[in-house]
């Protein structure tokens, strides 16, 4: 009963959400669409980081590097030969890549696969390290990837970057893949593999004593996560149409860590909500970077001002919601009905003395 009810509700939500995407793609202006796409891309980043850190307990800081692998692969495969010739004016592009032009989907998938391969090669030795040491090692590998991309002039065009990448990414691609990432991750963490991952997070020694193969599970989570990070990188490249190694500085990883912590470790709902809030807030805060005045006080435009405000917000979250906005909780229909009926009951009681205020239920776009 309950299960079929929940399934139907999920299906309806998905259909409504798809309708909303179709409506926005057709009517919204490119600025809003760009923000929506970025929301989806950061959702993928946050969910994958959550898989590795929130569920498996491995503090890895290699996201920017894996995103770069996916982004460059997709960019080089989707660009037209003419564009490539225009881009590579310092040194010619390697002949293998000069004349290929693939459709978006295979290019993106190969970006994911290559990111996963790099993730596997890095994870295999690095996941033997624990805690801070793993963080330092993966951070270093992420930087190595970026520096390699700066120096592989004939493949990546070095610091000049790539311009004129076709803008294939739209809200169907980005949100479709974000939903796939959430679905796959959710299925994984709820399976017996997921239990093993959580056991590793809680106590490695006890997990191994129960027969959990530590290295296998860590590498599995890490590689899967790198695959989706690569996909997100490809989406990003084909969204902003211009990439250079500076896009994939450590700052990108820092943002992802911030989003995930804010949303709550081991909550995919938290990661999703937090990624959207972060992206929207960052746009909404743009005015603070241009000159403005508060009464007699003139504030000159300071680039980066919004990051100061964001950092302060992050501090507030960490101080008052130590476990993030959602902690370990996930959105579910059962939870939803429990809350709304409790809310109705409360409103019913107060309704005797005052007119009942309208109930504002939050729209949730995840199964």
């Amino acid at each position, binding site marked *: 009963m309950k299960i079929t009810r929940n399934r139907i509700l999920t299906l309806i939500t998905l259909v409504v959400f798809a309708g909303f995407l179709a409506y926005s793609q057709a009517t919204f202006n490119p600025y809003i669409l760009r923000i929506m796409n970025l929301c989806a891309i950061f959702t993928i980043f946050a969910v994958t980081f959550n898989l590795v850190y929130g569920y498996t307990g491995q503090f890895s800081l290699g996201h920017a590097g894996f995103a770069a692998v996916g982004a460059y692969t997709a960019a080089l495969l989707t660009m037209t030969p003419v564009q490539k010739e225009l881009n590579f004016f310092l040194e010619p592009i390697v002949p293998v890549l000069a004349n290929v032009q693939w459709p978006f989907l295979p290019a993106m998938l190969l970006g994911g696969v290559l990111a996963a391969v790099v993730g596997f090669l890095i994870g295999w030795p690095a996941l033997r390290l624990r805690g801070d040491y793993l963080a330092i090692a993966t951070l270093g590998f992420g930087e190595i990837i970026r520096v390699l991309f700066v120096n592989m002039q004939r493949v990546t065009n070095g610091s000049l970057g790539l311009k004129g990448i076709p803008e294939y990414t739209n809200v169907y691609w980005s949100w479709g893949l974000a939903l796939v990432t959430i679905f796959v991750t959710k299925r994984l963490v709820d399976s017996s593999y997921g239990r093993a991952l959580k*056991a590793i997070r*809680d106590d490695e*020694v006890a997990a*191994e*004593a*129960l*027969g*959990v193969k*530590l290295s296998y599970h860590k590498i599995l989570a890490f590689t899967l996560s790198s695959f989706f990070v690569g996909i997100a990188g490809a989406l990003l490249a084909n969204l902003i149409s211009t990439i250079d190694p500076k896009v994939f500085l450590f700052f990108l990883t820092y943002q992802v860590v911030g989003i995930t912590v804010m949303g709550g470790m081991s909550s995919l709902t938290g990661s999703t909500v937090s990624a959207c809030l972060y992206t929207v807030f960052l746009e909404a805060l743009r005015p603070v970077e241009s000159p403005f005045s508060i009464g007699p006080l003139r504030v000159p435009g300071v680039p980066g001002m919004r990051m100061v405000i964001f950092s302060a917000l992050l501090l507030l979250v960490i101080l008052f919601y130590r476990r993030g906005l959602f902690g370990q909780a996930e959105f579910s229909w059962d939870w939803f009905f429990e809350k709304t009926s409790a809310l109705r009951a409360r409103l019913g009681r107060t309704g005797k003395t005052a007119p009942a205020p309208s109930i504002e239920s939050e729209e949730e776009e995840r199964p």
Partner: protein
Amino acid sequence: MLEVRDLHVYYGGIHALHGISLRVPDGQIVALLGANGAGKSTTLRTIAGIVKPSEGDVLLDGESLIGLRSFEVVRRGIAMVPEGRRVFTNLTVLENLRLGAYARRDSNQVIQRDLQEIFNLFPRLEERKKQSAGTLSGGEQQMLALGRALMSKPRILMIDEPSLGLAPVLAQDVFEKLKELNQAGQTILLIEQNARAAMSIANYAYILETGNIVLEGPAAELAQQDEVRKSYLGVH
């Protein structure tokens, strides 16, 4: 039968075990007693494959376990309840128990049946199966750690200091459960500082001192010896 032959273990330059030999026959409770630092936990950890010995052998039914990783040792049928319980505090009781069956290749149905058996043995765990393990009391956590190890259907169950940090009444409960399990056919290797409690349920006991076995014998006989009574049972 589990057999340990002439085991030597070094931690860096420290010689922790000086040639330990012991046997755990099927269907018995064997106790390994001794003070802090005598090498009890090291022996257990070596059998479980967590520590590598420099010399000696560990045999399960004549097959050597040396060189196997600890997850492989579990698959051969040796389960360990680690010292200090080490339950997964963020996971539910049910998830903890399911993890115990992780190394098994049995169908879900068989595992569900075994789960019910554990719940019959520890009704408290069934009441709290949806709760996270961190919210259990010390005694309940020890029961959970025991149940979790039993979920792997071990040939040999190794328990490290089950009474550690438990009120005497609760410790007594744990020992009674072990006795019950043994009567149902479970082979147990028990490590304990509380020698009196351990000897009351064990068939055979070994006493360790600074990495050597100094005394061994049937538990009931050992408990009568003056030396043992003075040093380990606190009777003058």
